[in-house]
């Protein structure tokens, strides 16, 4: 009796293991355009969400869930990736650096989402990561100014490029290393542990900026990097606006996740770009869709289009 029971349990285990194997193979049914579009999004604290919504012309949804289509699903970057391997009728968006072949990355306005197309400025769903400095001689001390200049030089090196790429953005190409240029910045050899440099501006860049300063501080005499990121608009205001730059919120380096406006004009040497942040709309591999426009994406995310066939009707 007991032996029979043991045999039964073993058999049951074996059968259930085999069943696991077979259930993994799914039958592929033809794509049904009448199915509802399942809309996946990042949560309101995400910089990728802010970049995506601003890029498709739906800025109201950057930090507000209530303007999105009913029944949206909130996931993180990886969560949206895995969801697109399961959900044939889903759509989501991820950072370009995480795209792989398990999902289908959509062309945006007819341009393929590749790093090359980001660099040559043809791929549209992206935003630049910009930096801005105070005017020459307008720093709390000469040490701060020297460190800031060294930091900007560091931004153009491949060392900084690796850090930027590891944090989901796309660095501008560079072949210079910090070791080869550091001799031009004697400040990096001094002990700067009593010097504080204030960084601010875009909160979307905060993660990248903090990673960059974390790597640069030990290379430059252990100065103190103070991060206070409040938004792209403050990149100019807190470094160059005469009414604000010398108050307690003044900054030495400001970051913006957009190009500077004509009203934010400073000298050429005081501003530059450190990276691109490219975002890609993704769908399931079985989805026949291959190209979207900003208007399509906005219509999907605001609920104007609820079925996949609505896109064909356009």
């Amino acid at each position, binding site marked *: 009796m007991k032996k029979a029971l043991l045999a039964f349990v073993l058999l049951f285990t074996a059968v259930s293991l085999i069943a696991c194997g077979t*259930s993994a193979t799914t039958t592929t049914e033809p794509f049904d355009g009448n199915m509802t579009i*399942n809309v996946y999004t990042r*949560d309101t*604290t*995400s910089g990728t969400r802010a970049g995506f919504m601003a890029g498709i012309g739906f800025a109201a949804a950057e930090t507000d*869930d209530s303007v999105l289509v009913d029944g949206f*699903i*909130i996931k993180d970057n990886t969560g949206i990736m895995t969801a697109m391997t399961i959900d044939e009728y889903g759509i989501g968006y991820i950072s370009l650096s995480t795209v792989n072949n398990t999902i289908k990355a959509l062309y945006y306005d007819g341009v393929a989402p590749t790093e090359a197309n980001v660099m040559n400025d043809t791929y549209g769903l992206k935003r630049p990561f910009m930096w801005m400095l105070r005017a020459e001689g307008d720093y709390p001390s000469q040490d701060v100014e020297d460190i800031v200049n060294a930091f900007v030089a560091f931004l153009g090196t491949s060392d900084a490029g690796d850090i930027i790429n590891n944090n989901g953005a796309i660095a501008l190409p560079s072949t210079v290393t910090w070791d080869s240029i550091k001799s031009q910045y004697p400040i990096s050899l001094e002990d700067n542990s009593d010097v504080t440099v204030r960084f601010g501006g875009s909160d979307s860049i905060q993660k990248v900026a903090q990673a960059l300063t974390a790597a640069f501080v030990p290379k430059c005499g252990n100065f103190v990097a103070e991060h206070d990121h409040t938004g792209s608009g403050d990149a100019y205001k807190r470094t160059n606006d005469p009414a604000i730059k010398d108050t307690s919120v003044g900054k030495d380096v400001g970051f913006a996740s957009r190009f500077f406006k004509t009203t934010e004009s400073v000298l050429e040497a005081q501003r530059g770009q450190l990276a691109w942040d490219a975002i890609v709309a993704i769908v399931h591999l079985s989805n026949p869709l291959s190209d979207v426009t900003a208007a399509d994406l906005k219509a999907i995310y605001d609920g104007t289009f609820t079925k996949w066939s609505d896109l064909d009707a356009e």
Partner: protein
Amino acid sequence: MHPKVTYQKGPKGSFPLEGGDRMSDQSIAARMKNTASSRRVDHLAKAVFLAAALISASFIFLIAGIVLFRGFIPFLSDNGGLGRVDLFHFLTADVWLIGQTFVSNLYGVGYLILSTLFITTLSLLISFPVGVLTALFIAKVAPKPLAKVLRTVIETLASIPSIVFGLFGAGVILKLVYDFSMAIGYQSKGGNSILATVLVLALMTIPTITSISEVAIRSVDTTLEHGSLALGASKTQTNFKVILAAAKSGIFTAAILGVGRSLGEATAVSLVAGGRRSGVSFDLLDTTGTLTTMMLEGLKETTGLDYDIRFSVGLVLMVVILITNLSLNAIKRRVGAVHVKA
């Protein structure tokens, strides 16, 4: 076995000595000295134990205190110009946030409290019967070698970290739920659903319930079992009507611990729930959210009130867990215990 020891009355004022021979005064003095030093060790050990107990106990107060303090901040301060959060709205609203993040203070967790309790109840409905029957099988029905193997399997399952259950949920259960709903002609949200959440939680709580129930079942007095069998009851009748009934107090404890694990689970749940932002849904294939997933989502990127409010959600969760545990314990006392060996 203990060595056989005979005691003999020693000199006045001393204590009984080992062995049959009378001991010399020196050896008695040496022994007294030993005793004195071992008493010192005893005192020292006592102090160390007390310190350990105080440290572990004080952390509970520290954690509870900090969560209490930080959890109340959004309701008391003006949150950097956003204004005080309305406590009544917070506890009853069915939308997580009305308006823009970092701009609005209209947070609400009412719908999350209900979803959390709903999900926990459903997962218990699966894990409790499966867990208890598995425990009964291991303790009373299975042949010894099989029971040993199963016990190890269950113990291993209980020690698997929740993130692993979460990855299993996101990789396997979501797909199963998605395929299942497609098969019945219903388009789910990529499998992100109450059903997937409940299945993951059930998987996580079954080992807890099984191992504790099994101990309770094994400690039921065998005379009860023999008595039942002698009266002519069958094995199955004895198992269900006598053994389970006698172990019900321990089994109830297992259920309470299972509920605790369900209520507090964040990582695994957040990977399969879908992050619902408004309204309670009782549709098994619709997305959902719990208090814990709400605390976790965006936690690493947010600041200001949107960060502080997560402590308030944690406070609500602690209160929900406390109330649930108190009421379950009250029920347990009413259910009572029958002849369970200590």
